[in-house]
């Protein structure tokens, strides 16, 4: 069987297209590279969607955390504490069990004339359930980063905004928020990288892989179990993730350059990779 044929059969196996059964014997390097790469689609799906959605929630939570009102600040603090203080692994289990306990048939919400039935079945599937957990988790971690950045916006910037007669929303939109993003961006880049790393936990926690459609590590683990040889599949995952990390660093570096474009070139902060977050 030629490698091209294997790629045709297995490149989208993780999404349910192509060959139904996973290879059972005669594993070639091509099989492993193709299937693990196919699983990487899930890692990118989880990482990208959680990151984008989490960005908005993180901004809101960071603002609530910085708010003077106790009713906004306390819930934000607790949200951040719970999601940053506990392991992501436990969060996956906890949410999965909670989703399983929801009534399988769905809720009936009576709305006067019509009754709306809310399906809950899909929440126990990894594509939705795990995404929700990752979304909340990254929102909490990013909110802490954004909050820290918001606290370190230079006083001079705020004074300047006041001098220009900016206040309220205009001041936030034009001065506070861009500066906050600019200051937070290097740390946020690290957060994004480790979020993608954290996506490998999904199929090792409560969430089952439906019809063996798993992520990169799921397939690597499959091959390692079948061949008793960890020295091929795991390095393949490693190479894929190094490439993904480089790509992310490059993309975030472009945004960083744009956020700092008004600064003289010798003052622009670079992005340094720092290993910080295992959840």
């Amino acid at each position, binding site marked *: 069987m030629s490698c091209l044929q294997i790629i045709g059969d297995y490149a989208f196996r993780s999404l349910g297209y192509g060959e139904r059964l996973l290879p059972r014997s005669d594993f070639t390097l091509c099989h492993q590279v193709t299937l693990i790469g196919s699983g990487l689609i899930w890692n990118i799906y989880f990482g990208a969607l959680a990151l984008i959605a989490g960005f908005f929630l993180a901004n809101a939570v960071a603002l609530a955390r910085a708010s003077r009102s106790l009713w906004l600040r306390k819930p934000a603090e607790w949200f951040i504490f719970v999601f940053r203080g506990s*392991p992501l*692994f436990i969060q996956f*289990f*906890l949410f999965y069990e909670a989703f*399983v306990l929801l009534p399988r048939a769905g809720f009936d919400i009576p709305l006067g004339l019509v009754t709306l039935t809310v399906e809950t079945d899909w929440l126990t599937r990894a594509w939705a359930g795990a995404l929700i957990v990752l979304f909340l988790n990254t929102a909490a971690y990013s909110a802490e980063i954004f909050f820290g950045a918001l606290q370190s916006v230079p006083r001079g910037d705020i004074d300047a905004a006041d001098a220009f007669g900016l206040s309220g929303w205009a001041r936030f939109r034009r001065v506070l928020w861009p500066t906050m993003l600019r200051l937070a961006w290097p740390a946020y880049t690290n957060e994004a990288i480790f979020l993608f790393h954290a996506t490998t936990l999904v199929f*090792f926690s409560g969430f089952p892989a439906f019809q063996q459609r798993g992520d990169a*590590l799921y397939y690597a683990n499959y091959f*390692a179990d079948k061949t008793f040889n*960890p020295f091929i599949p795991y390095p393949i995952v490693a190479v894929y993730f190094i490439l993904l990390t480089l790509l992310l660093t490059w993309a975030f570096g472009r945004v960083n350059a744009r956020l700092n474009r008004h600064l003289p070139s010798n003052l622009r902060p670079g992005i340094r990779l*720092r290993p910080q977050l295992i959840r």
Partner: protein
Amino acid sequence: MFSACSDPSSLDGLAWLGCYLTTGKHIDFYWSFLTVLILLAVTAPAALAFGFGGAMAARSPVLPLRLVGKGYAAMVRGIPDIVFFLFFVIALDQGLEWMLHQVRCPDWTDPVRQGLEFRVCPEAKIPSGNAAQIWHRLYGFGLAVVTFAIVFGAFAANVLYGAMQAVPKAQLETGESFGMTQRQVFHRILVPQMWVYALPGLSNLWMILIKATPLLFLLGVQDIVYWARELGGSKTSAFDYPHPDWRLYYFLGLLVFYLCMTRVSEVLLGRLTQRLTRGQATLAGDAQRKPA
């Protein structure tokens, strides 16, 4: 366990709950919390030692050693740590058995890797085939500890390398000008001073280590996650204590356990930082000197 619990079906309410929570399996569950604490207690110093070695190697004047040290510190950056966890447990196991195989069975002619199997001679099995169950468990736990130490050693090497670089160069040069050897400069000037710079990174690492302990479950150790799943699953009336699916509550318990652990660590590490910054020539040290 208690005599009042001999007939669970006749109990109800709090008595039932009290008996339920003291069954033998629950006692095992409580002991597994100790497993987590032991893991933390053993891994933290081991990882620190690995990290110290890595940081020293990364600063070495010998090029190959330096590359090894830097490579070790860099390996955790681009690759998810769980890959290392899954990889090292098998790789270490096979590596140890392979080495024993070479020593104990020099005349063994069959290849070790036969197709899809990894086969060493029976004398090289670890632990040996007829060993008691406890040895299998201890060996599994030992492998997990070494794996944790390797991975977290790489994180610690990063932190310690940065801290060693942060000690002002002028101080090291002063030591040299007093006629100290490199070894003396390292022991008397560099190491005592670097801890303050390393502390923020190390306390972060400690939090990460706490939050990584449930991964023991993936390494096949019977830890708290294993027991929470085992005990929480719904029990039919064939069991002494039938109950519906309670895994949610067990995991809620674990969540609270971890939140307490991180909260207590946060407070203690905050105090330690206060203590170590006293008298330091840093902003935080100045702030303590002149209470406004």
